[in-house]
């Protein structure tokens, strides 16, 4: 497996993008329910 730094970056990217997606769905909810 790649070095520890790359793994940490990968984990942060996964967590960040998933959180962003959830935030996006919340914005869509706001728009639709408005």
């Amino acid at each position, binding site marked *: *497996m*790649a070095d520890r730094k*790359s*793994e940490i*970056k*990968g*984990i942060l*990217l*996964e*967590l960040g*993008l*998933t*959180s962003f*997606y*959830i935030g996006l*769905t*919340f914005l*869509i*909810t*706001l728009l*639709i*329910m*408005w």
Partner: protein
Amino acid sequence: MKKKKETYGMQIITYYTGYIIFIVSLLMIIPILSSLVFMEWNTMLDFIISWSIATMVGLLMMIYGIKAKKSGANMQWKHGFSIAAFAWILLTMLCAIPYRLSGHTKSLLDACFDVMSGFTTTGLVLTQDLDHISVGLNMWRHMLTFIGGQGMVVLALTFLTKEIGGAYKMYVGEGKDIELRPNIKGTTRHIWKISLVYLIIGTTILWIAGMMIGMQPITALLHALYMFESSWSTGGFAPNSQNIMYYHSVLYESITMVIFILGSLNFGLHYAIWQGKRKEIVKNIETQSFFVTSFIACVLALAGLAKLNVYPDAVAGFRRVVFNVISAHTTTGLGSIYARQFALEWGDFGILIMILVMLIGGSACSTAGGFKGLRVGIVCKGIVMDVKKLLTSEKSIKVYKYHHIKDRVLDDNVIKSAATIICCYMVLFTIGTLLGTYYGYSFADSAFESASVTGNVGLSIGVTSISMPSAMKVYYIIAMYLGRLEFLSVFAFIGLIAGGIKKVCVKSLRHSS
């Protein structure tokens, strides 16, 4: 010579099934220790009895098949597939013993239902009085779903001291085919590495969130561990009868959402991203498929429910609609509304959306169920490919590709095998719906529950209960099992048994004549 080979075939299956049982039974030490810490003596005794039985069964099977192991007999595909299928059946029965001994299940069938639901990461529950279950049994319930998500065969192969021939065949038999490393031992160890790293991160975050919403540190830690195992494995179990609603927290719900979305992604994708291939998350056909279908499903469900005026504001809409749609799509099954609210408040349109996303499911080679985004993507690309072929000149030859970790050729065989598995899921779903309507449940209720078991989701509309007919419980167990192992290994196992019975019949007929 041929006879000897056939006997070895049976012995190979017995040996490795016994080995898997032995390894999984070792995990009962964890609930035994937790019962010891929390001074739950009855639970500890239940697990000691169960562990003794499971270990004995595993060891006896290994002793029976040791000859084949020592002779170095070759493991064929049919053996590898049958080992996976057989181990899942035996383990379901053995792991149900502590459930039955605890007195929280009405019958052994109910106990087996819950264990299969855990192993297949479905999350439907027949265990009674969930709010007063011992820590030991709760630990076991959530461990089952965590192990099941990664796979029992994957777990057993992780503990191999040296590489064995045929290990890959057992691994594929459990419905996983991605190769993270050149050898299978390395691949399974990396699957566990990914899961355990997230176990530490996810449990810590949920622990802090639990304390922030007023839970005691020890209780918050236990709940964090249970909810992580349940979310990451896209399981749907919870340590209480109210499921995720127990926490009354947007923060807790949002964290579990992040975890179950990550759990529903392909282990190959996690591995690629951790290795520095960041673009994979955008290029991969599975992530594209998941984000498009989940986004559309959320928008449609929100629009449908906004029209019905069920939820007053955006926060309620997000917590009740988006959470449930994504929970269904990732085949998690954590529910933020009561079962009957789907039937009474969501209307036919909302139920239909849920059925569709439950059937599609998450990614292949992840902890999720359903017929998988990869297959949806392949079939959709296949349709586009056919249309393009029609529109271009007959003389031109073009190779079509799709991206899944690496570029792969999209040919008719790939499309055919994806479509075949989708058809098998649809048949399983249709039979389940028919059975539900036969027993008097409404069409919508039957279809919803059938999609939930077929896709290993675990959301319920109220059909699954201890009063449900036994035939439906048995069918749901079979559907969860077939859905999780993706049919082929079970069919191979049935074929092997049928072939054996046929040979015995022919032999006895010859003797009598």
